[in-house]
């Protein structure tokens, strides 16, 4: 194929995305034209390193409920808090204040006492959130149930009381799973097991006993008697991202990608290469910020991406490397 003449779609050879389902808490998509390590790094980063806010420190003024303080504190940590505009908020560890302040901490207070004969339920919606915080949404408990109550924290009998003050901080799931933005991430490839990455256990016939994935229809089943291809590598990956509610599912992907780019940029600067890229990756940026190629306009970074020019950065070339998924002839791209 003549790559030079291929200027109708400059990004024909790079990563491609096809979204099959999306709503307020899910996004399912197919990622193709990438290799396993590329897709898997995306999966790992959205699960472990996209920052959110969660309750981290709880002060108990009164707790006469049947649950122990630490038990309640653990439950509080797991309540999803709104983290959509988290970029205004620094990590408490990096904040100038040294401890906690309005910039890096959101205070949530709750005071409940059961006075009636009925058992009283205490929900996340009973929190009052301090107004001194980076912006007016960050730290609000996420409430999605139709009654608008939010997650149940504990139940109180007549005379029992719960009075707490919680400090919510920004963090990542590598430190504690309560900071995960995702509740589940599906990651699948090769639904027909053509690559034999799986060794399916069976009684008599693996084909009959194992249910087919829903993505099996998306790829050609193996031909009868087809010889095993030793050189085949996976290149279509099926993601099913489920948000915990604190960040929108598409934002999780976007922030994960930014996070990875920052990591890579830090290596470039760490190796002593002159790079302004590091400053520019400071904090998550809005999607599409890079559409005009402005991100890479400093020396050494321009031309390759984001220009609609006739020459494709991904256009590949004559070398063997040109045939890889991100094929770059080694001259057209980063020079």
């Amino acid at each position: 194929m003549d790559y030079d003449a291929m200027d109708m779609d400059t990004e024909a050879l790079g990563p491609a995305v096809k979204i099959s389902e999306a709503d307020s808490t899910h996004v399912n998509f197919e990622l193709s034209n990438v290799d396993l390590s590329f897709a898997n790094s995306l999966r790992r980063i959205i699960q472990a390193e996209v920052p959110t806010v969660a309750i981290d420190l709880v002060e108990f003024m009164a707790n006469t409920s049947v649950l122990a303080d630490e038990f309640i504190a653990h439950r509080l940590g797991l309540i999803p808090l709104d983290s959509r505009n988290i970029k205004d908020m620094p990590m408490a560890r990096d904040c100038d204040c040294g401890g906690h302040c309005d910039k890096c901490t959101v205070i949530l207070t709750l005071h409940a006492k059961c006075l009636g004969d009925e058992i009283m339920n205490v929900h996340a919606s009973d929190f009052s959130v301090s107004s001194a915080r980076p912006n007016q949404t960050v730290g609000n408990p996420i409430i999605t149930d139709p009654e608008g109550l939010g997650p149940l924290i504990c139940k109180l009998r007549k005379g029992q009381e719960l009075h707490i003050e919680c400090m919510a901080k920004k963090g990542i799931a590598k430190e504690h799973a309560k900071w995960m933005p995702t509740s589940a991430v599906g990651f699948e490839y090769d639904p027909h097991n053509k690559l034999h990455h799986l060794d399916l256990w069976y009684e008599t016939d693996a084909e009959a006993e194992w249910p087919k994935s829903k993505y099996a229809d998306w790829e050609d089943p193996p031909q009868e008697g087809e010889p095993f291809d030793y050189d085949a590598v996976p290149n279509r990956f099926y993601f099913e991202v489920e948000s915990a509610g604190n960040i929108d599912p598409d934002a999780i992907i976007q922030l994960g990608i930014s996070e990875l780019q920052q990591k890579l940029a830090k290596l470039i600067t760490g190796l002593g290469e002159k790079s302004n890229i590091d400053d520019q990756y400071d904090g998550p940026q809005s999607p599409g910020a890079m559409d005009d190629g402005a991100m890479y306009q400093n020396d050494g970074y321009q031309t390759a991406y984001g220009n609609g020019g006739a020459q494709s950065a991904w256009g590949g070339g004559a070398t063997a490397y040109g045939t890889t998924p991100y094929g770059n002839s080694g001259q057209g791209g980063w020079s």
Partner: protein
Amino acid sequence: MNAPDRFELFMLGDNEKKITEKIYAGMSNTSDFILLKEDHTLANLLAEHLKQAPHVLMCGYKLAHPNVPEVFIRIQTDGTITPKEALIEVCKQLIGAYAQLQREFTREYELRKMVSAGNQDQANGF
């Protein structure tokens, strides 16, 4: 009780450098890179893509212990470029590839939103 703090998995210590290069004398054109506070997310990504990069003869990585967030990457090149240059090149390529993924994803997502909004309008009789 004496477990290390969890944030030590990703916060660099006071005198720690993110990445250090050590020339490996046992092989020609070979360097070892030590990445502190990193894990398979970055290590596997870099190692796999270095293997595909031009002028790189050999590349491998290890995480010596699952509790120790230190990545070891060894790169051998054919001498046309240094291992460090190869690594920087791959980092830049990957940043670009992820930038493209970001654009692709945004475009597809916006398109999808427009389609579903259109469908809703139809359902509502607009």
